[in-house]
């Protein structure tokens, strides 16, 4: 039996106005991602991959077209509802890690659980478990500035997966890391995908991520060029 769709985008476009000039960042695009997929969206800079990721994460709204996430239409949601939707359904990993510098590793991970109103006991247990999983069990009380780039991205991964979301979206997650660290992190995410069934969608122009993904979508000039299942 086929798994249900986590992402269903139909005819989505995004046009930015730069002064009087209109920039078509994304031409009409369809995208459907099933639960448990490990998908990479690849393409050169300016190809529209980050734009597509922003649209399917609810961080941005399309100029036209429809986006359904985890079975919910997000186009009609208010900013507050979108915030709640991201909190409940989506984990985000950024290229620049984007950890909160005044929070410790443990607090950074715990923060998203706190937003969900989880009980303190369960929060502590989940944070402990997920930090063990990403190999940072002993660094719970460190601040982000006391960690290496690879370790910070592990914290970001832990933060994204701790609420057990329907979908984790990662924007160029290895771009700021050396190739060995990047590869190790990808292996870790792949293992999480296989073992826990978490759906991952990456935007990347890193060949290594493309190789490790189970589905590769390529974009060029805001249009899908290819969509390959491996």
């Amino acid at each position: 039996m086929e798994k249900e769709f986590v992402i269903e985008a139909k005819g989505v476009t995004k046009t930015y106005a730069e002064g009087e000039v209109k920039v078509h960042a994304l031409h009409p695009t369809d995208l459907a991602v099933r639960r448990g997929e490990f998908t990479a969206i690849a393409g050169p800079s300016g190809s529209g991959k980050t734009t597509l990721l922003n649209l399917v994460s609810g961080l941005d709204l399309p100029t036209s077209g429809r986006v359904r996430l985890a079975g919910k239409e997000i186009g009609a949601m208010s900013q507050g509802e979108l915030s709640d939707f991201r909190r409940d359904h989506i984990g985000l990993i950024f290229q620049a890690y984007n950890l909160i510098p005044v929070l410790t590793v443990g607090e950074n991970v715990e923060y998203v659980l706190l937003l969900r109103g989880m009980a303190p006991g369960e929060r502590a247990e989940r944070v402990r478990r997920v930090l063990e999983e990403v190999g940072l069990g002993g660094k719970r009380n460190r601040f982000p500035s006391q960690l290496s780039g690879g370790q910070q991205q592990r914290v970001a991964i832990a933060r994204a997966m701790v609420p057990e979301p329907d979908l984790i979206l990662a924007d160029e997650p290895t771009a700021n890391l050396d190739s060995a660290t990047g590869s190790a992190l990808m292996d870790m995410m792949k293992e999480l995908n296989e073992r826990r069934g978490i759906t991952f969608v990456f935007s990347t122009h890193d060949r290594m991520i493309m190789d490790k993904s189970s589905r590769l979508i390529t974009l060029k000039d805001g249009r899908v060029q290819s969509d390959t299942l491996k």
Partner: protein
Amino acid sequence: MLTLRMALRNVFRNRRRSLLTGLMMAGGFVLFSATIGLSEGTYGSIIDMFTRSRTGHAQVHAAGYLEKPSLYRAVSDMGRAGRVLDGLKEVKAWAPRVYAPALAFAGSKTVGTQVMGIDPARERAAMRLETQLADGAFVADAASPGVVISARLASALKIKTGDEFSLIGQGADGSVANDNFRVAGVLSATESAFEAPWCLMHIDTAREFLALGGRAHEIALVFTDYRAAREDAALAAAALADPGLDVQPWQVTEKEFYQAMLLDKKGGDITNLIIMAIVAVGVLNTLLMAVLERTREYGVLKALGTRPAAIFRLIMAEVMLLALISCAAGALASLGLNHYLSGTGIPIPDPVSYGGVKFTRMLSAVTARTFTQPAVTVLAAALIVGIFPALKAARITPVKALGSR
């Protein structure tokens, strides 16, 4: 709890900036507190100077006397009133007085005057009438024809200490009051609360002259604390329990002086508000800078699912924490400064004299208001100033914020 922890750590994140902002707020607190202290101290001195010159902190009259003074509206049972007032711990001293208009004659000169009968011993304990004497002696402790006149009466009648003059008035029994008096002393022309043509004599002399018996037109009260004049006047009225008597604090008996003082105080409050507005603008600028610098961070928080209201609360918590810390520091500094100003004070280049008292320095009065008003103002200013940056941060669009550096 995590929001508070984040707010506290954010406060200490850019220490130099937080220190400068905190210093601005604490500085405003200290300035505000010192101004209030000096204002309270100065007004305290003025009120003391004014009330102890003649008025007292409160006055007892026969009902209706204040609105329409009359020789016939007098406190008749002085024995009972005196016993009741002696039994009140709030009443430090009291002094009975009689008043009546009269005509003063000396040689070919005639002047309308106001006769005031006083009990010198009681006045000495309650007031500073004697210190306003410029020449001669004060009213003797026993009834005598020796009287003290104001400089204006002396000038109008062209008489001096030792001279004689006559008074004609109306007695309370309907008779014509007529007698000769001797000038025992003259009050100061510049430092006296008796500017009009006054004639002060012993109360028994005045009672006999005006056929008043044991009655008095006024009982001046001096309380242990002038600031509680209203409350203590109400207490005295309750204790006297006589609907025929009217007890009013100095704010009522000297309404014009009190209104002028309130107006002057309002002017001071406006100055303080201007100080706080300048501080607030400085703090607003710093906060806006901080929000601008952390735009990306707020974008991340929103991307993770933080609601705008939570970001608003985070910024407000930061501002209020900084304001609380600043208030604590400001209160400590103000305590030291006000303590110094209440002891040493600020010298007045041209000392002022009134009612026989010379004011050479401005002294601060340390009261609860010295600390509560600056604290409330600083916290309120921080709260108001924090709203705009907090709203700005709360309204950040995550996708735009994440693109900012």
